[in-house]
């Protein structure tokens, strides 16, 4: 019985020991699991925090990236080798960078655009475009431009990166120097109509070279030269010619003026026109142009483009006065001593002139396959349509005014009498003679372009400018000549013949 009792006690002890140890182990496992759970919770919390952090950083990065997508970068480089036949150019063959432009476009909100386009040249960076555009969001028809941008004209607005020949036509280069102007423009382009109207107001003197008596440019930084603002307008309308092509027609006009810078104004044929009240008065710059671009599908693209422009283009003159005081002279007569001072005023005037001009260009462009393009352009520019070729170089107007002398006497003292005599002599040189700036030019340009891919193209072009032969005098020598110096040797261009000045260009362009 006792044995049974002992066995039961032993069993009880073992059982309870085992039970409690199991319980303890289970408890420990639970505790361990809880700890593990806590650790996992902590880790999850840490990871969640990290993810939140990443999300926040991602949101910031996305925000920054979104800002960056509002900036667009484009540009092109034109590197070329040119060989010129002109006698005054040395070196006459050279490699050069014609364009190295990067265009930054920033559109912070839809419809508002900022553009800045510098041109990088070795040793020189210039800002070609800098403007802002606000597009109205309701009708999507009107946009307002302000800053420096292309003047509204077909050939001006047609980027040289797309142009089929190396340079713009002579008439365009003459009336729209540097292509850009500073001002404001309203563009009207209803989305449902192939109509575009551009109305612009510019300072009007961008890119113009205005010389003083020494031949220095007094308009070098293109700040405004006068208070007058020039108006430009252009309208174009595009027709579809069924499935075979399209025709765009348009017209543009320039209504402007420029400070005469002198009081004498000449007509286009160099005859005297009028005398202005003062040198701040204005001379006219008014012209109109008519344009058309025809696109036709004849075994690939074919385009015929042209424009005719005519009007009046004023060129300011100058007025310069220099005074020289001669030493005093004395003379004695009838107890009167006369002391005389002579002041000689020399006035050098170059009269302003309003030239009638006209010019046009015609392009014929043919694309052959996807990669080849040939282009022929004929352009003509007559800077003075009122002057026949045999009249150029003949002085029609030379208003040199004869020297005149004024005497002014003053008397000083009573006895002996001294008279002070101030003499003023004025000499006016007023002359302008027709010459090289009145000569007509016609230019033929031939070009072949190979499009290597979407970004790279090669152009081989030959430009043949031909001046109109102008007046020959009785001795058989041309009335119009210009001089140059090449390698220290003087030379002369005689415009009674065609001056050789053809240019061969081999250009590579990379656009991005």
């Amino acid at each position, binding site marked *: 019985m006792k044995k049974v009792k002992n066995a039961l006690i032993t069993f009880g002890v073992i059982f309870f020991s085992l039970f409690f140890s199991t319980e303890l182990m289970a408890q420990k496992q639970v505790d361990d699991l809880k700890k593990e759970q806590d650790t996992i919770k902590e880790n999850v919390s840490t990871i969640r925090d990290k993810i939140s952090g990443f999300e926040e950083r991602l949101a910031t990065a996305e925000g920054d990236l979104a800002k960056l997508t509002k900036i667009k970068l484009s540009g092109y480089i034109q590197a070329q080798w040119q060989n010129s036949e002109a006698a005054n150019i040395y070196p006459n063959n050279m490699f050069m960078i014609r364009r190295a432009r990067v265009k930054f476009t920033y559109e912070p909100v839809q419809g508002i655009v900022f553009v800045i386009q510098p041109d990088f040249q070795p040793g020189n960076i210039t800002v070609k475009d800098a403007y802002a555009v606000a597009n109205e969001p309701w009708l999507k028809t009107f946009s307002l431009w302000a800053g420096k941008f292309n003047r509204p004209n077909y050939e001006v607005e047609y980027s040289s990166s797309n142009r089929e020949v190396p340079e713009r036509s002579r008439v365009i280069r003459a009336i729209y120097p540097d292509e850009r102007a500073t001002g404001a423009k309203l563009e009207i382009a209803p989305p449902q109509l192939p109509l575009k109207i551009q109305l612009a107001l510019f300072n009007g003197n961008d890119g113009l070279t205005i010389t003083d008596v020494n031949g220095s440019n007094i308009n070098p930084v293109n700040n405004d030269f006068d208070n007058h603002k020039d108006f430009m307008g252009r309208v174009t309308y595009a027709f579809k010619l069924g499935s075979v092509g399209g025709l765009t027609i348009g017209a543009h006009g320039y209504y402007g003026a420029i400070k005469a810078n002198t009081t004498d104004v000449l007509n286009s044929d160099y005859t005297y026109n009028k005398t202005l009240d003062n040198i701040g008065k204005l001379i006219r710059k008014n012209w109109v142009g008519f344009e058309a671009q025809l*696109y036709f599908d004849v075994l*690939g693209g074919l385009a015929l483009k042209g424009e005719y422009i005519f009007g009046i283009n004023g060129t300011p003159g100058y007025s310069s006065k220099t005074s020289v005081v001669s030493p005093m002279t004395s003379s004695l007569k009838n107890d009167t001593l006369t002391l005389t001072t002579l002041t000689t005023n020399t006035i050098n005037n170059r009269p302003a002139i309003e030239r009638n001009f006209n010019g046009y260009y015609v392009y014929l*462009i043919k*694309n052959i396959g996807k990669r080849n393009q040939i282009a022929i352009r004929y352009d003509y520019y007559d800077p003075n349509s009122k002057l026949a070729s045999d009249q150029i170089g003949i002085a029609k107007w030379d208003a040199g005014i004869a020297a005149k002398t004024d005497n002014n006497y003053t008397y000083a003292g009573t006895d002996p009498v001294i008279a002070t005599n101030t003499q003023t002599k004025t000499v006016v040189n007023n002359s302008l003679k027709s010459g090289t700036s009145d000569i007509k030019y016609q230019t033929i340009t031939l070009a072949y372009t190979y499009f290597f891919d*979407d970004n790279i193209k090669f152009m081989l072009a030959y430009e043949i400018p031909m001046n109109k032969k102008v007046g020959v005098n009785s001795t058989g020598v041309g009335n119009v000549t210009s001089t140059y110096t090449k390698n220290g040797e003087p030379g002369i261009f005689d415009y009674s013949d065609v001056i050789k000045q053809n240019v061969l260009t081999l250009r590579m362009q990379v656009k991005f």
Partner: protein
Amino acid sequence: MKKSNKTLRFAAIIAIALIGFAFMPAPKKITVKGSDTMVILAQKWAEVYMKSHPTAVIQVTGGGSGVGISALINGATDICNASRPMKQSEMDKLKERYASLGIEIPCAKDGITIFLNESNPVKELTLKQLSNIFSGKTRNWKEVGGPDADIKLYGRENSSGTYVFFKENVVKTDYAASCQTLPGTAAVVNAVSKDKFGIGYGGAAYASGVKHCGVKKDDKSTAYMATAETIKSGQYPISRYLYMYLRNRPTGEIKAYIDWILGPEGQKLVTEIGYFPVK
């Protein structure tokens, strides 16, 4: 001597044959790129055409109308599919590069369908309501006769012609920032089918697993669903042409392919896919 003559003759025949093989025109591959809306239709056209014209090789890819037009301009594709007309700026680029205005060929008609989740009680919306919804002015279904729940917007990426067409003709302002952009109408349909409060738009050919919403010009008009009749008659307010664009007038293999597309066989496939023929 005789043997060498024979050898020479044999060599000459081989040489002529080799030269002949070298100059034999390789089958020209036609590349088609552009509208995602049209990609199924374009693939079907290509597949059926290649079966009946074993020498033809046609490669079709999507990417969106804008991408297709860019590819046409940079010479990377022969045919561009576009679910919107070419913009003036794009036409200008074509003029500058190829002295051509491009050739526009309407090849099918489509009604942009408004997709709703099948559980959504809303049955019709006016153009004004759609504009407000997709521009973010209307944000709750309650405002247009639905449940009190936020509207979830699904649309296309900005390279898509459908995106541009819907924006210009329906939204008429910017899309709401909350509009989730998806690559292709199929993705829009899929998203709306899974989202009780979703709304999306896209080509009619893709609408399965979702509900079509009737569209009214205004409050007083009748609501129309995009069907062959309503699109043909002009009653359905959001219909458009689907286009193919080429740089120049087609010739050779490309002309044959386009003629086939515009012919009875090609137009039959238009109907089969779920769009509407142009003739």
